[in-house]
């Protein structure tokens, strides 16, 4: 009987991958042991069988066809970008209209908006939680600066203009939802509103945040601790940072199937999956139990089978809010929601991916408020956004 280590050496011997010392050891074993010689013969025979499988040839014209298709795609992509700029401009005009509408003068208090670096140019930051109402000034909307920003991004090879456009549309929908809240039509368990300022009357806003404790691994995930908050807010945001959102989403879906968790994948996600477009994805879970969600996340973790270490472990739960708030902002939000500020003591989002989301979020919501620093950061987002954007999973409160 050959030892495991000797078998491994014999296997490497067949491949000609031994060091001189190992080679000497193998030669000695082969001289002394018939079993070792048989083992090598068996390996060689198996290798011969495998090598006897014929080499295959691609269909004729594979390369030429591939190149032709790539060239066509390049042309289409170029045309699409021009169309996209026009679409963004159009969306922008609509957005401006709604923005101005919801910012009509009126009494009240204002919101807490975090990430002062991005928003400070337009929105005064509270000097303290007790500062009280802050009136949102009318935005100094500069269409040309936004257009030039888009141009800069385009020139820098930024290929996500369609995503920007999508976000503009979302912002409009969001503002419409703010109206729904003001009119009392908001249903917590039906809403897709995540977080942000909600209009109460006139230009009075209140920040609606969904407080969710952090967890880092599925093992830490305790749905029960969220139930009470869910019953009030109805939503849960799980922000996964991933190098490859398309693959990560597939893994989530597969894991969902394995754990028998009903996932509702919206049309946009389906389209993006089909087109292999990395982006922010929303996946909804409905009527799930704690056990199901835990099983789902565990299956997701288990499905981390990529051979490349670049992709392995690529998805990590990074934060649970769509954007980060500074300490002051968190305190303010906590107070506005009647929560203990200690619950917000730690930053909830520190990763680059979440910051990118935050940045993008602000970039469409307050397009004129981009600071120079933020502008540079946006311009720095080049090419496929694989390692820059987060996967956002929304979990709807279940039974």
């Amino acid at each position: 009987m050959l030892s495991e280590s000797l078998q491994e050496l014999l296997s490497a011997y067949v491949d000609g991958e031994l060091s001189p010392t190992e080679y000497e050891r193998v030669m000695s074993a082969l001289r002394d042991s018939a079993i070792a010689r048989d083992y090598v013969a068996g390996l060689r025979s198996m290798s011969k069988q495998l090598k006897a499988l014929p080499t295959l040839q691609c269909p004729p014209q594979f390369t030429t066809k591939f190149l032709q298709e790539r060239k066509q795609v390049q042309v289409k992509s170029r045309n699409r970008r021009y169309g996209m700029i026009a679409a963004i401009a159009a969306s922008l005009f609509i957005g401006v209209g709604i923005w101005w509408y919801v910012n009509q003068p009126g009494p009240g208090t204002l919101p807490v908006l975090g990430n002062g670096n991005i928003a400070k140019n337009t929105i005064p930051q509270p000097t303290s939680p007790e500062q009280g109402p802050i009136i949102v000034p009318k935005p100094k909307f500069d269409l040309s600066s936004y257009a030039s920003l888009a141009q800069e991004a385009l020139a820098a090879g930024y290929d996500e203009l369609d995503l920007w456009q999508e976000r503009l549309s979302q912002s409009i929908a969001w503002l419409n939802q703010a109206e729904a809240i003001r009119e009392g039509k908001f249903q917590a368990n039906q809403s897709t509103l995540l977080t942000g300022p909600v209009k109460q009357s006139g230009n009075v806003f209140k920040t609606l945040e969904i407080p969710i404790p952090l967890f880092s691994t599925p093992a830490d995930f305790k749905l029960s601790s969220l139930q009470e908050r869910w019953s009030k807010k109805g939503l849960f945001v799980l922000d996964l940072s991933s190098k490859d959102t398309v693959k990560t989403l597939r893994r989530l879906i597969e894991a969902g199937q394995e754990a028998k968790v009903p996932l509702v994948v919206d049309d946009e996600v389906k389209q993006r999956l089909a087109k292999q477009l990395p982006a922010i994805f929303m996946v909804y879970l409905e009527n799930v139990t704690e056990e199901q969600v835990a099983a789902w996340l565990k299956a997701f973790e288990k499905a981390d089978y990529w051979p490349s270490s670049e992709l392995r472990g690529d998805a990590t739960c990074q934060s649970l809010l769509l954007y980060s708030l500074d300490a002051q902002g968190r305190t303010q939000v906590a107070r506005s929601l009647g929560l203990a500020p200690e619950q917000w003591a730690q930053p909830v989002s520190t990763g680059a991916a979440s910051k990118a989301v935050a940045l993008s979020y602000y970039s469409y919501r307050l397009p004129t408020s981009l600071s120079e620093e933020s502008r540079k950061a946006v311009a720095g987002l080049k090419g496929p956004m694989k390692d820059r954007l987060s996967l956002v999973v929304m979990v709807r409160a279940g039974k």
Partner: protein
Amino acid sequence: MSAAYPALNSEKTPSLSAHEQDNNRELSPDQGRPTDRSQEADEAHLLKAFQRGNVEAFGVLVHRYQDRLYTALTRFLDNKEDALDVLQDTFMSAFANAGNFKGNSRFYTWVYRIGMNHAIDLHRKKKPRATISIYQGDQPEYADPREDGGPHEEMIREEERQLIRKALQILSAEHRMVIVMKEIDDMRYEEIAEVLEVPVGTVRSRLHRARSELKLVIEKLQAEDE
């Protein structure tokens, strides 16, 4: 259909420089296997040309490696159609990301890694794994007709090929991949380690385990046949 796509050759790649065209003509029967530094330098040259906007230069690389990668993918997936889809996706990904390719590894190793990731992706999507009886691999693949022997010997060889393909599909994806890389693609341990991004020692032990598993599977299949 195929008439719409003229064959790639030096005459059909007018945008290639004279040097690049020479490289294109140099494709040998052993194409796709970077054997020396000159070939690596040649790849770097082609990639630079592509990064400067010469799409045809990328075509030379595709042409160089397409059959080799197609064979490996087919052996891994045991389905020619799937392998072809994955091959296209692989080169599309490589095309889209070649601008970011830093040259830290060989081009083929890089493309191979992309290809295997796509293949595993597809493999996972198709869970539960297709049963052996329905895979396309059951279709005979005719080997080199120059092999000796008459129809009877060819029938025996085909049975052996069927058996080995069947056995490969029973292996775990991890083991099958390393077997394909070593035995089908004839990669060195160092290259396999580069693709899998694991130490060479890990490749050696994994390959040993894969071979042990394959041996057992073959024995089991043979016993079932008998």
